[in-house]
């Protein structure tokens, strides 16, 4: 069987699995966020944190909850890393330097999971499992909570209330992420992913020499790393490491985990706004972009020129032979089009175009299907922009899901789309203009530029994947990427929640023949066009100087 055919079959199996899970999971999540019953364990948690889960919150209160909870998360994680040297169960690793500790804390709380450290050489069991893994769950739950608040903004009317942040946070963790993770971890262990608390082993290498391996609760962290679109690997090699991702099946399963919640949330959205068709339209937009990107990635990675490519059957450099080109291509597109950032191959070793596709995927705002929660709200913001332009074209004040897109709404949406380009381009330009940051580049020319552009694209969009090649553990990069991650995560959330509050206050407008039909393929096409032109074109000049210049040269 040719590797291209194998890739196609893997893709079909993946789509079939996602399709099977779509309705039950999407409906289940809608019930979780709509139910007014509390589980016993949830009641304990509410009592412990002193929250009243039945109190409705306006958008400002909801936002305060998000920010306060995340700020505590950053401080806790920062402290834990700074104290690692004095904590037991740390495998003898010393405390992390302040700039790197800040970077890592910002990274995991913002669901980015950019790693400027080497997991197996820096972080012990306590930080990995007690700090990083915890954030893997809760940062994902925060993302879903904000998305649900926005959906409630559409679904509710004549109220400013968006639900209760603490209830949404706890439910997302207890009822969705933990149960799915338990099932997923068992499957991963069955595939051969390790799960233990053993120490460091020194083993002899095949070619002579010695190598250190450490054990750890890898499967449990791996599953939430993918499921919560986090991406921070237990090991530096991330999902290319055999302890994290041993074979082709585990590889496909991990891709499935990455995409599971982001795609299914469109069903939840459709259910909650009372029209699953609206959810399908959003799903079609996400799936359309995702499939097109996979197609492009496969094409460029299989069609490399030169003798090395021909011998290997494509661009095999930096890829694991057990995954092959297709398994790596699907993984890298899925990880960059969501906010995951886990890698099973080295994006820097992709063809020039391939690296560009990864970057563009993140630059579109990670909305196809995007991170858990963040993908949905990012896509809904783009839908609002598309509706605004198209709505005018049908001769009415634009409206989406029965809500008017007026001055206030467009103001918040416009602010949202400003944030990431400002962070990505601003920090990249600063890094290029200053003399020191450039020392971190391993390559010169277009590829070297891509390394830095990729780093800020990844941080600003909360992806967390690295292009490899860039030495990011410097004070400059730790600080600036840390800031980009925090601002790239929480500023958009401010605008999303403000928008949600504004939408929830409106009264609904009944649909008529004069209403723009947002559940039709025409709208999906329009939405894709809006995303490509408004978000994608912003980065065209930068991409031209990096991956395009590189790709066109070969």
């Amino acid at each position, binding site marked *: 069987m040719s590797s291209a055919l194998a890739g196609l079959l893997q893709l079909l199996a993946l789509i079939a699995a996602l399709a099977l899970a779509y309705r039950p999971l999407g409906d289940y999540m809608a019930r979780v966020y709509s139910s007014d019953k509390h589980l016993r364990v949830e009641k304990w948690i509410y009592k412990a944190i002193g929250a009243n889960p039945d109190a409705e919150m306006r958008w400002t209160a909801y936002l305060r909850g998000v920010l306060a909870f995340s700020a505590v998360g950053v401080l806790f994680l920062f402290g834990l890393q700074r104290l690692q040297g004095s904590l037991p169960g740390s495998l003898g690793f010393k405390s992390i330097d302040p700039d790197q500790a800040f970077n890592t804390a910002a990274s995991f709380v913002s669901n980015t999971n950019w790693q400027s450290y080497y997991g197996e050489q820096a972080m012990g069991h306590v930080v990995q499992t007690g700090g990083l893994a915890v954030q893997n769950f809760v940062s994902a739950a925060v993302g879903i909570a904000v998305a649900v608040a926005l959906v409630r903004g559409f679904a509710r009317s004549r109220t400013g209330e968006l639900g209760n942040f603490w209830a949404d946070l706890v439910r997302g963790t207890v009822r969705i992420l933990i149960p799915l993770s338990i099932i997923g971890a068992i499957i991963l262990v069955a595939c051969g992913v390790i799960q233990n608390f053993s120490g460091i082993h020194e083993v002899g290498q095949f070619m002579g020499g010695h190598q250190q391996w450490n054990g750890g609760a890898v499967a449990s962290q791996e599953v939430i790393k993918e499921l919560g679109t986090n991406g921070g690997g237990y090991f530096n090699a991330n999902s290319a490491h055999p302890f994290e991702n041993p074979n082709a099946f585990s590889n496909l399963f991990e891709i499935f985990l990455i995409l599971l919640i982001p795609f299914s949330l469109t069903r939840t959205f459709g259910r909650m706004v009372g029209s699953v068709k609206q959810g399908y339209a959003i799903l079609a937009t996400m799936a359309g972009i995702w499939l097109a990107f996979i197609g492009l990635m496969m094409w460029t990675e299989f069609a490399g020129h030169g003798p090395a490519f021909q011998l290997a059957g494509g661009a095999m450099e930096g890829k694991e032979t057990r995954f092959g080109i297709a398994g790596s291509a699907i993984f890298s597109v899925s990880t960059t089009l969501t906010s995951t950032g886990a890698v099973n191959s080295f994006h820097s070793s992709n063809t020039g175009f391939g690296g560009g596709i990864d970057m563009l995927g993140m630059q579109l705002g990670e909305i196809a299907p995007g991170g858990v929660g963040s993908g949905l709200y990012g896509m809904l913001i783009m839908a609002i*922009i598309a509706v*605004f*332009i*198209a709505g*005018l*074209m*049908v*001769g*009415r*004040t634009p409206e989406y899901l*029965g809500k008017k897109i*007026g*001055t206030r*709404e*467009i*103001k918040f*949406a*416009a*602010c949202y*789309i*400003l944030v990431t*380009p*400002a962070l990505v*381009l*601003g920090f*990249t*330009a600063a890094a*290029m*203009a200053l003399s020191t940051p450039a020392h971190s580049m391993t390559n010169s020319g*277009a590829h070297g*530029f891509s390394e830095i552009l990729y780093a800020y694209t990844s941080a600003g969009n909360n992806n967390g994947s690295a292009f490899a090649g860039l030495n990011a553990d410097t004070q400059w990069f730790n600080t600036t990427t840390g800031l980009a991650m925090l601002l790239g995560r929480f500023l958009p959330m401010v605008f999303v929640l403000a928008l949600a509050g504004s939408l929830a206050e409106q*009264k*609904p*407008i*009944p649909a*008529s*023949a*004069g*209403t*723009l*039909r947002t559940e*039709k393929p*025409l*709208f999906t096409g*329009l939405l894709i*066009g809006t995303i490509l*032109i*408004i978000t994608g*074109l*912003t*980065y*065209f*000049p*930068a991409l*031209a*100087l990096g991956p*395009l*210049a590189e790709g*066109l*040269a070969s």
Partner: protein
Amino acid sequence: MTLHDTLPARAPQQDTPPPAKESGKVGGGLFDPKQLLKSLPDAVRKLHPRVMVKSPVMFVVLIGSLVTTALAVTNPGDWFGWVITVWLWLTVVFANLAEAVAEGRGKAQADTLRKAKTDTVARRLTGTSEESVPGTDLRIGDLVVCEAGDIIPGDGDVVEGVASVDESAITGESAPVIRESGGDRSAVTGGTKVLSDRIVIKITTKPGETFIDRMINLVEGAARQKTPNEIALNILLASLTIVFLLAVVTLKPFAIYAGADKQTSMIVLTALLVCLIPTTIGALLSAIGIAGMDRLVQRNVLAMSGRAVEAAGDVSTLLLDKTGTITLGNRQAAEFVPVRGTTAAEVADAVQLSSLADETPEGRSIVVLAKEKYGLRERHQGELTGAEWVPFTAQTRMSGVDVDGRKVRKGATGSVIAWVNERGGTVADDASDLSYRISESGGTPLLVAVEDADGARVLGVIHLKDVVKEGMRERFDELRRMGIKTVMITGDNPLTAKAIAEEAGVDDFLAEATPEDKMALIKREQAGGKLVAMTGDGTNDAPALAQADVGVAMNTGTSAAKEAGNMVDLDSNPTKLIEIVEIGKQLLITRGSLTTFSIANDVAKYFAIIPAMFAVAYPQLDALNIMRLTSPESAILSAVIFNALIIIALVPLALKGVQYKPTSADRMLRRNLGIYGLGGLIAPFIGIKLIDLLLSLLPGIGH
């Protein structure tokens, strides 16, 4: 109900014409290229930063022009810098020109209005005596006298007397109108002229705030405020401008690293920025708004705010008065129904005879029907010598004629039966039945009886009915396709209302409507999230007009109604409500379409400028030069020139409005997305290539 009761309470000013089939497609007058030249001085005056800052996109272009000018001055030998500078300035001027042309068309109208607003001397009543004061000294509540030949000094209500007034100064309609105290025809407008009689007017508005003042402000655009959608669009455009500003500013360090420092001079980057930010829509946005108001003015509708015009596009429920809007003002004879034992021809002959002297529209329609449907030769009043005409009175509720020993009567059922019985005649058994059936079907029955040698007897019944205007059903079907519900408002009983509603094809009706009912209906619709439009003229309509999202007051109406509504129709033609909705929609569509066009344009501009800047540093990037433009300079120049010229090219479209045909949202989107989305992608590729071809012929640019 008597015959005369069926007359409309308000005499229609003019027969409402059948709805124009072409409406909506009618533009706002022809665009004359000469206007561009005429408005040029205004356009240059608008370069003042305080004016420019209102449009964030064009303000950025202005700053860009200043920057390139400064750079060109410091390096006078650089022809490229000068040419770019000139075209950037032209871009700004073209944008101002679009606005100036749009405003210029209102100015002409304002001048005409000003002529009417000459300083008048008012004859103010003080107690029993009269004093002459300037019109500007009048206060609310003052009483003034106007006699034939006087110009009415201010807006007010007639409190005494009746007069014919020439209102052509504001309506353009030369036929005089009657203004009288009390009722719904009491409002007079300052600047109009009394032609006959004497009236006493109570002033209701302060000088300087009169209707004519407001009109002048409106058509001149002085009172123009940005509408909600326009503000929202401006925010989106501003944010896109910031995004592109970021993309261009950050490009410089990238370019230096890539080794393209020289190719990305400040002038080139400014040119790139101006090409990328949505200048096309930014330049035309305010012209589109002004032109939208202007289109209303051209249809003799004054919108008191742009907000109302926009709301008109969003309307989902139209409340339409039956009389004058859906039906012609008057009832007309539709059929002569004989009672058993007589023939239709006999009835026709009798009613024609009885109606010869009846000058009411109903009477005339009887004569016409007798001739057209029953083939009766037209008789004239003069032919009958010795005829004695019996006029209608409120007591007898009948009219008729006594001629050659024959007495013919027609009138309300009860009265005619009583008349026959009085004369010992026979009333056919089915007479009441027939009358009832006509009533039931929504018509008005008039019984016809005769007394001659054979005694008194009922001959038959005239079926009078409301005649639905031609083309209304199609019009309502159109509205339904646009998602607009129509509700007919009538004082008729539910039975009659239902019949007419069905015939006209409206979606719903409100029978025996009181002002309170109307108000309740509007509130109910609004509670469901719908926007409601209505017309009205009476004082009792005022609360509903104020409550409706679009309230169009008839100019013939009371000043209370005009004050309450947010639009005034100078023609007092209620059918115009439909056109107003179409104009509102057209305004939004034009904005949306040009925005789409403007944004889609960017793709081609990138393909022109990016390779021009970077093909030296990375020769492989020349592959992006898919238009195969001659040289980097001509590529950048072509993009800038296209960007400027497209503004001028689209001015007529902005003024006229995008073609609008009532249809569903789906179809409209497909059409406009095809023309302005796809067109916006493709057009600049062709345009830039053509300009490049022309430029390559010039020495110094071509190879």
